[in-house]
């Protein structure tokens, strides 16, 4: 079955959902979820770039003979990007903990000391 470039469209939709969440939700945790959604979409996009039809993982240990392998670079990039996503999420959630400690709320409409 030929699916054209459907996987890329799905990744773009995930990114768009993430941006929607980021722009329209009022809870700090939901903002973090939005950022994570964007990350997931980008990771999906990256890993989809490396697929070759009917390819196998680019690892020679007990590999079936004479099969085409998928591209290794996008997998390496995705690995890097996942770790970076983990790091940013950890820091964002820490900030959320401290905002809750100071303001007693996670509602962005009430966390507005910095304006103008």
């Amino acid at each position, binding site marked *: 079955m030929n699916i054209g470039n459907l996987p890329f469209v799905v990744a773009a939709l995930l*990114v768009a959902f993430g*941006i929607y969440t*980021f722009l329209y939700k009022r809870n*700090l945790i939901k*903002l*973090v979820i939005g*950022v994570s959604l*964007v*990350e997931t979409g*980008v990771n999906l*996009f*990256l890993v989809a*770039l490396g697929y070759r039809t009917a390819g196998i993982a680019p690892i020679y240990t007990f590999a079936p003979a004479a099969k085409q392998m998928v591209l290794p*670079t*996008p997998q390496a*990039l995705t690995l*890097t*990007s996942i770790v*970076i996503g983990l*790091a*940013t999420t950890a*820091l*964002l959630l820490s*900030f*959320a903990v*401290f*905002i809750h400690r*100071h*303001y007693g709320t996670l509602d962005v409409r009430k*966390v*507005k*000391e*910095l304006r*103008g």
Partner: protein
Amino acid sequence: MTALTQHAPVLLIAIPLLGAFGVPLIGKLGRGARNTFVGLIALLTAAFAGLLAASVFGAAGAPSLYVLGGNGFGVPLPSGMSIPIRIILETDGMSAFMALITALITLTGAFFSFSYWKDRSGGTLYYSLLMLLTAGIFGMELTGDMFNFFVFLEVTSIAACGLIGFRVWLKTSQEAGFKVMALYTLSGLFVLLAVGLLYGQYGGLNIAYLASALTGSTIDVVALGLLLAGLALKAGAVPLHMWAPDAYGEAPAPMSAVLVANSQASLYGLFRILFTLFGLTISVAALGWILIVLALLTIFVGVTMALIQNDIKRLIAYGAVSQIGYMLLGVGVGLAVSVAKPDYGFVAMQGGIFHMFNDAACIGLLFLASGVIVRATGTRDLNQMGGLAHSMKWTSVLFLIGAFALAGVPPFNGFASKFLIYEASFKLSPFLAVVAVLSSILLLAVFVKVFQAAFLGARRDGLPAEVPIGMMVPMVALALVVIVFGLFPGFFVDKIVTPAANALWYGRDAYIGLVLGGG
């Protein structure tokens, strides 16, 4: 000595990393050992930046390579291949110029912190984050690989946000930290998405390879848009500036200066992408005008918002935002006319690039001085200060030097670069020059107000004494840079600014040819 010069690009990144990983271990030995270690690492980094600059500017800004992990660091392509497969650091006049700025700011920031952060908790982690930020900024400036650029962009984002939220007892710092981290992450993801698009289209990640392969298709335009949005956000250009005053205002004072260097590194990335990566494959004039419009908005919004602030750090932060606009204006004018390449386009480029250095020096000086003021008075509200000039003569003089330089008053360095920008943008359209000049005058008015509010006025009881020598020396050093660059602008424009502008303006073919051969 030559071996050190050849390895200088990678050592510039690896030595701050060594510092960052090592500081927490050394910190267990005590404060003295830790500060010595940090100082040594900062000095060593600055020395390597100087070495790199000397070799690059000695060769009139010609690009040079460092292939990481290769059989010898000068061979970009394995035999029989036309795509570079390893990560390549590529340094030309522009990267070396940026490395000089970063070295200056991080060195002064680190030494200022030794006495500024003396009575605070968590010093070890603070210096570790500072070193990580330094390494990230150098990485962004020296790399020749798109994905590597993204990785170092994220290093700077996370280290910067750790520093912005470092004073956890301030509720505003936590709010700023969250906001800035979320927006930095989005900007990084935009860049990553663009890198993914380009990789999917051309199967490579090296800037020079991509530059030679680009065709100007729809995907390329989308990638350019994403890169433009992501890097403009990270640089703090209006309308994506909402994080910048929070970040600069809430970070500890010396770190605000380093954050400005970080924004400038993103701006460097933007220029590198526009001139070297995309070059003439897209409609350059239209892009140049986009940059000019962004620049005018940034200048205007920055200055008018600075006008209404009562918080001294936030006011300087808006001043910093407006200066990003001047750099964008200079380079935007250059980009708008880079097809015909008239003389004034090159002058505009020189002005915009020279202003990066001058802005780093004078805004750094202002942020350090504001740290001194806030520490001495215990408040950031301008209405509650006053009379500081009676007890802090040196600080008031230094603050005045920084303010005059920022507002472009001769004979300080801000005037030298702004004059080039005025002159060149006037030739493109007088309107641009008028906005730029008027905004500078307004900025001068703003800083006269600050000076009047904080330093002048009657002598009060309990005025703080002059700052310790440890904070004074970095400020004096920056002030000297401001004055020397203002008195001899011609020398510096010839020696370091022209090679940097050349690298962007004419250097695309040399940049690509060095990696891919031919050229």
